[in-house]
């Protein structure tokens, strides 16, 4: 980052954290937050200004708030859906058993180690993304269709840990627009995924970014979380 840029980012970060950066300027600045350098500057201001936090008496919220959160995150599944899920998995096992008995052995199945949901909000998930078998393969499943103008594509990036690739995003390729896709990862992609905690999606010309770095706006950032074993 050039020193002039750094000063500007520092000033905007300070007012972002203080809360006086508002409206469109705030939205624009939030898009910069995917950059690890900007993230670090913001974190430093959050730590500095934490001293302004007031001491307040606690106020217990009404129970309706928790119910609202549960509904929004669908933490509580209805028993009927649970039984349907169990029935569906039994059918799945039977069908798979039938096919595997007849077909030559498939390549060994890789276990998902990490996953990310690329979503607008809890209700609208566009893609579920999984890393399989110690970052050997990437699987992407379309959950609901993302709006996309003709001549454009959506590219998936890993935001590596700050010490990897200078924290610069590394492309994981284009996201499928329908169905699902599974592909092997290159050594460079695997290296960038070690210790990474976030994926991002940017809008690019069809065929993907011509520069190797995101050129269009970053539309989504998703947490990459370990799959519980």
């Amino acid at each position, binding site marked *: 980052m050039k020193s002039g840029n750094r000063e500007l980012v520092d000033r905007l970060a300070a007012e972002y954290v203080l*809360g006086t950066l508002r409206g469109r300027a*705030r939205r624009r600045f939030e898009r910069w937050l995917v950059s690890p350098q900007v993230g670090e500057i913001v974190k430093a201001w959050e730590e500095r200004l934490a001293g302004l936090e007031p001491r307040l008496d606690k106020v217990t919220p009404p129970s309706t708030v928790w119910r609202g*959160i549960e509904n*929004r995150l669908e933490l509580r599944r209805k028993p009927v859906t649970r039984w349907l899920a169990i029935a569906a998995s039994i059918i799945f096992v039977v069908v798979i058993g039938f096919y595997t008995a007849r077909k030559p052995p498939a390549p060994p199945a890789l276990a998902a180690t990490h996953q990310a949901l690329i979503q607008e909000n809890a209700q609208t998930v566009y893609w579920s993304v999984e890393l399989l078998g110690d970052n050997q393969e990437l699987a992407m499943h379309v959950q609901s269709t993302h709006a996309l103008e003709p001549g454009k594509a959506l590219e998936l990036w890993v935001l590596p840990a700050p010490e990897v690739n200078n924290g610069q995003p590394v492309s994981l390729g284009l996201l499928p627009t329908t169905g699902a896709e599974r592909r092997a990862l290159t050594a460079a992609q695997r290296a960038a995924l070690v210790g990474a905690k976030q994926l991002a999606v940017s809008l690019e010309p069809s065929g993907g970014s011509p520069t190797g770095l995101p050129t269009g706006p970053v539309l989504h950032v998703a947490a990459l979380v370990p799959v519980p074993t």
Partner: protein
Amino acid sequence: MDRNETLPPEIELAQLLQRCAAHDSAAFRTLYDKTSPILFARLLRMLRRRSVAEEALQDVYVRIWERAAQYEAGRGRALAWMVTIARYCAIDLMRRERMTLVGDDALAEVPDESAGDPLPDKPNNFDQCIGQLPEHTRNCLTLAFVEGRSHDEIARLTSNPLGSVKSWIRRGLLSLKSCLSAEGQTA
């Protein structure tokens, strides 16, 4: 309202957040029970209206659940991380609702300042550094950070020209940064 109740231990909150990152909804419920009275008080302080603060509190916990994986346990600051999410949600909500808070009549909703525990993350020498700023600057920073007031609102509330408010805030932030980093080096 509970007076002077101690804050939940940081290490416990950090562990709960890590379990949330692994989609453990029971841990999420525990985390909510332990922290929602703190975050709700903080939101009321900024949003002033109970119904709006309740809506914001939902946004806050949805975000905490979705971003738990981004919390870096090594840095500690679990409660401060959550309070920051709450402040940002409140600012977003003000924008969405186009709320103007000046001359608000719902001040009765605002929780009292207490003698309870401060958040555990105050930088060393913060009090000394903030104490060196002129009073009008300190006042502007507090109105912005604690109450979520915009430049315009601060200018109106304190009857100062907008330009002065903006430059006091800018200079105040710079002085605070250099004072805290100087103190950090000598400490």
